[in-house]
């Protein structure tokens, strides 16, 4: 059965000034699955992730060539509405980046900038759904006025995910989302990601190969700006096609 592709790149090249960070990347990321991108530091995995919501536009001297197709549209086209793109393609970062506001306002903030505010009771319903989705509602429902910085790191990261979810994205990009968390919190967040994949396409960049093996359905291995191998995770971790992938995941280099 043909898999539905959510993100497809076509000879994607990216330059930071004269340095080429991505070289002819052709990847097809399946819809409603978790795709992990692994590779040594500096291989271009975060750069690739940041292409999918045009975050690299914020980097001076960054220049992209090729095409990135999401839902039949080339998001690298100049007429792309970046605000709409970033609502549709949400992002979660390495360290939870909650705002120094109340939990409630952290969530309302996103709705406001995306002009999704409506009646107060509807906002409350949206926030509740968001918190329920990430497993925070029961703990926080009576503390919505508390400053989000008072939460544990795991709760903060879940809050960041909720903030993305309430904007009703299709795709969620996660850049090392568990690297600030302890192992148990990491496993719990991974469980959450597995629940979310029923409704969303998730792309996770991770240094932690065991995390990629545990959580993802598909794995891409990158090295020196190139996508060396992309296959289902079972294949990559039991019998990779490329020697370079084998050497990297076995810890023979890197």
């Amino acid at each position, binding site marked *: 059965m043909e898999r539905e592709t959510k993100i497809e790149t076509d000879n994607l090249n990216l330059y930071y000034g004269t340095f080429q960070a991505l070289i002819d990347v052709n990847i097809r990321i399946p819809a409603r699955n978790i795709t992990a991108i692994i590779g040594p530091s500096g291989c271009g995995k975060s750069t690739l992730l940041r292409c999918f919501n045009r975050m690299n536009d914020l980097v001076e001297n960054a220049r992209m060539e090729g095409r990135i197709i999401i839902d039949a549209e080339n998001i690298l086209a100049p007429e792309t509405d970046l605000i709409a793109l970033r609502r549709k393609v949400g992002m979660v970062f390495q360290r939870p980046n909650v705002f120094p506001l109340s939990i409630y306002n952290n969530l309302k903030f996103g709705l406001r900038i995306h002009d999704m505010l409506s009646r107060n009771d509807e906002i409350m319903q949206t926030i509740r759904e968001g918190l329920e989705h990430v497993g925070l509602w029961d703990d926080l429902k009576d503390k919505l006025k508390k400053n989000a910085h008072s939460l544990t790191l795991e709760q903060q990261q879940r809050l960041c995910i909720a903030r993305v979810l309430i904007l009703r994205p299709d795709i969620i990009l996660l850049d090392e989302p568990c690297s600030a968390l302890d192992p148990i919190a990491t496993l719990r967040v991974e469980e959450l990601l597995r629940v979310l994949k029923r409704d969303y396409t998730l792309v996770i960049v991770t240094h932690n190969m065991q995390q990629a093996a545990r959580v993802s359905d598909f794995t891409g291995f990158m090295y020196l700006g190139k996508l060396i191998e992309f296959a289902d995770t079972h294949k990559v*971790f*039991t*019998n990779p096609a490329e020697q370079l992938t084998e050497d990297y995941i*076995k*810890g023979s280099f*890197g």
Partner: protein
Amino acid sequence: MPREGFHKRIKELEQDVLELGEMVITAVNRSVEALKSLDAREAKRVIDNDAQVNKKRWALEDKCVDLIATQQPVASDLREIIAVLSIVRDLERIGDYAEGIGKIVLMHGDQPLVKPLTYIPQMAEKAVGMLRRSLEAFVKRDAGLAREICIEDDAVDTLYDQAYHDLLSRMIENPSVITRATYLIWASHNVERIADRATNIAESVIYLVTGTPTELNVSRY
């Protein structure tokens, strides 16, 4: 090599497999010799030594489990450990077949053999040869050699067929030999199974090298 210690431990597994292989090859050769000469003392030695084979098997499995639990092996490292787990069980079972032949010798007692053994030593020689080459294929990571071994199993099956019909016709001719002839059928069946286990080991080697589980040759028995 960032994981030198880990890869050294994987290499040690290989050495352990070869040692276990030598232990069971010795057991098979001794058991067939004991049957040829109806040597009860030698048979008893094979039976007693099987405890060492079992001990070695558990120790090796324990090492594999420890590596999986603590080192998160992947790719060919993972396949090697999975292959070793499988090979170790086949080797241990070959030890049991040798022990079984030892027990048949004790059951047979002092009565003379129905006939001097011909087929069983030939089968054993072939089976032990297959076993040695399957271990060689394991060490060399040679899937081609492993495939050749599987083909040899046919010759052992043919000898088993001949041994069975020979003994059957002797029983029909002279019902007084039925008990002793049945013992020899059991022994030849054990040797036939040893060759099948050598084939299993060759299949594990193919899995280790290619990553694809393969059933190469379905034994007739």
